[in-house]
């Protein structure tokens, strides 16, 4: 250990401060969900769980939650297909324009959401509008799928790099067709990576607001419902409950995904060996 004792103590203090900074706001908003009063004053004087029932029975919340789940599932499904295909091409082939594909996959999250949102909106309104395309859940799914591809792509690509292409060839040598090779050889290795990527894609979609505002038309997802309700002070207690719910829904998949991505698919040591042999 090169670092002297004082440095280590200071680093520990600095880390504790940064971690506290990261978690205290989440804790505070979690506590506000149990605030019995409508006024958002600190310290909380009256504790109650009554807003949970009110939020649960709120029609706006229910519709928005349903929309969010539908959009999240649809966007995740598209992202899984596109992300897996793209990562297989990048991992197993060398071709002209490979860099362009990598770049195009990453671009939707590298550019600010407002640009993606504005671009999609302009296209849907001016180019596709005359063809009868209208804003709705479908257009939200298109927007979400576009930037969710990258998380599936990253997860699957990382896994494919750790597995050997020779396994696919061995499968073909043994007489399996392309589908059988995918189903019985590749899929078992990719399963946890796909699950992790899918969970993250869903979490990403479930939270998204900036692109959603530009592509939603009259439909509300949960973040849009929250954002429009923030400006109505009497309904803030319901927002607090929804906020707590949203934090939990987005944090739990990340925790699971992290564990899945960490522990390898099949026999990690052997495949890693194979990968280094190639």
């Amino acid at each position, binding site marked *: 250990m*090169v670092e*002297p004792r004082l440095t280590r103590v200071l680093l*520990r203090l*600095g*880390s504790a*401060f*940064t*971690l506290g*900074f*990261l978690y205290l*706001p*989440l804790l*505070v*908003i979690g506590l*506000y969900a149990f605030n019995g009063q409508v006024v*958002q004053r*600190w310290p909380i004087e009256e504790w109650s769980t009554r807003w949970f029932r009110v939020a649960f029975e709120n029609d706006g919340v229910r519709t928005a939650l349903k929309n969010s789940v539908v959009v999240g599932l649809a966007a995740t499904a598209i992202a899984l297909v*596109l992300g897996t*295909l*793209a990562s297989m*091409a990048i991992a197993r082939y060398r*071709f002209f324009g490979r860099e362009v*594909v990598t770049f*195009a996959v990453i671009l*939707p999250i*590298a550019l*600010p*959401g*407002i*640009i993606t949102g*504005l*671009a999609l909106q*302009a*296209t849907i309104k*001016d180019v596709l509008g005359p063809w009868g395309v209208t804003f709705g859940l479908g257009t939200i799914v298109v927007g979400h799928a*576009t930037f969710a*591809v990258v998380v599936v792509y990253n997860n699957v690509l990382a896994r494919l790099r750790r597995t050997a292409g020779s396994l696919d060839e061995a*499968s073909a040598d*043994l*007489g399996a*067709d392309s589908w*059988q090779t995918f189903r*019985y*050889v590749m899929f078992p290795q990719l399963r946890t990576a796909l699950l992790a990527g899918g969970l*993250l894609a869903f*979490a*990403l979609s479930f*939270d998204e*607001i*900036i692109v959603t505002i530009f592509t939603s038309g009259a439909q509300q997802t949960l*973040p849009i419902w*929250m*954002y429009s309700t*923030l400006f109505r002070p009497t309904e803030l207690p319901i*927002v607090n409950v929804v906020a707590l719910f949203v*934090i939990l829904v*987005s*944090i739990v*998949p990340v925790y699971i995904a*992290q564990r899945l991505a960490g522990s390898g698919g099949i026999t990690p040591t052997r495949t890693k060996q194979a990968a280094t042999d190639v």
Partner: protein
Amino acid sequence: MTSVSIGETPPRQGAGRRLSTFLYRHPRVRLWALLGLPFLWLGLVYIGSLLVLLLSAFWTTDSFTSELIHEFTLDNFRRIIETPVYRDVAVRTISMAAAVTVACAVLAFPLAYYMARITSARTRNLLVVAVLMPLWASYLVKAYAWQVILSGQGVINWFLEPLGLTFDGRSNVGLWLVFTYLWLPYMVLPIYAGLERIPSSLLEASADLGGRSLRTFLRVTLPLVFPAVVAGSIFTFSLTLGDYIAPTLIASDQFIGTVIYREYGTALPIAAAYAMVPIAVIVGYLLVARKLKAFESL
């Protein structure tokens, strides 16, 4: 492999088999079968949309009906360059992005260093998850939480009240705090990864050669980890430039995002032209970052 006994059954002679053979003999077709859908989606839907946006920046709107007029003009860009408000807003947003980046780097460094070099492997994995979870927690909830915390009756002012102080949460300082909070995990993770890649032997060699810890840090650690800091700053910088929700909730001044959001409904060409400002800044930033070898740290 598992339960399939492929070896015992003779190969099927159906269409699937013929297709497999065809694909095996034609790697290029195989590649395009894989790339076709992603290419169509990202190329047509996404890149296509960006091009539509770029084109709209050269159009204009009818001043009565707000309908788009598809006539090529550079007026939108001229207006953005010549109107002081647009310039001020751009400068304010870019300064904010720079201030946020610095604050994130300062806050992220001790934690990243602690994770990479001080603690045990077990704690390290826990800390990685601990940094990842707030990153994924809803962006809107986090911005709203800060609105509540910074408000007149919120936690901060409750804390400051006994000291006879008040903090105006609806200010650019408040927004700076909120942005720093929002993007901090994006900075911690690349710096952590960068520090972890530095071999301990290098630091020990520096110590053996008489480098005191500060000198080792400044002359060995910092230069090696700098690309990782730049990699993190890509996120903190670009995310700040385009945001409009946090500025709407927290600050009263205008930022690039809020201006685009305000304009797009009635004057899409102006909004589109103004959107080229953050795109240009970010592309420039990415080019500099690539020169500094930051992409290898992403």
